[in-house]
């Protein structure tokens, strides 16, 4: 059983489109995250949700909107995609300040 799963694994889309990435965890964790990893491999936290409530909302464009229908799911919706949004997006979950389990990543390419 996959602990943290995100879909799709690859996403190629044109500038200006709207897309979503889905994430689900079956670990019973309270906290879920979205990270962005750019071409230089820098990992940057975007959002953190604890029990469906937004805890961290780093300075990301408001074109990015997280949605947490329940504590096992944290989806990421991106409006009006731009070239600079191309990156690998990782979903992760943890139970408090413990180890985070990462999904396999979604490689987003905006053309």
């Amino acid at each position, binding site marked *: 059983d996959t602990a943290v799963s995100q879909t799709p694994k690859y996403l190629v889309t044109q500038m200006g489109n709207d897309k979503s990435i889905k994430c689900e965890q079956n670990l019973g964790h309270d906290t879920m995250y979205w990270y962005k990893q750019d071409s230089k491999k*820098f990992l940057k*936290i975007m959002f953190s949700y604890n029990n469906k409530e937004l805890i961290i909302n780093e300075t990301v464009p408001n074109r990015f909107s997280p949605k947490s229908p329940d504590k096992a799911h944290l989806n990421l919706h991106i409006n009006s995609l731009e070239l600079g949004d191309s990156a690998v997006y990782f979903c992760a979950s943890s139970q408090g300040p413990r180890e*985070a389990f*990462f999904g396999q990543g979604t490689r987003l390419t905006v053309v």
Partner: protein
Amino acid sequence: QQPVQSPQAVILREGEDAVINCSSSKALYSVHWYRQKHGEAPVFLMILLKGGEQKGHEKISASFNEKKQQSSLYLTASQLSYSGTYFCGTEEKSNQFYFGTGTSLTVIP
């Protein structure tokens, strides 16, 4: 505040040792260490919660100096499987969490 890791990259021969440092400008609550292999997700190695704490797993260990706001990861007798990018993650006392700048480690035969 993103912690700074050093060195940025290191190449080792099998059996050699390496130290990766992670330094923050903020007071820290905890330090995490992760390894990411090419094309894969980061994988948790260990967490250090207290200043002065040291942890180890086989030949990979780490220390946390709370006063100096830094942590070090020690890899001894490196193996080919240790290759990857190592990230520290720092949880600040403000509850903000940041990953470090990353250290690329390559072990060659």
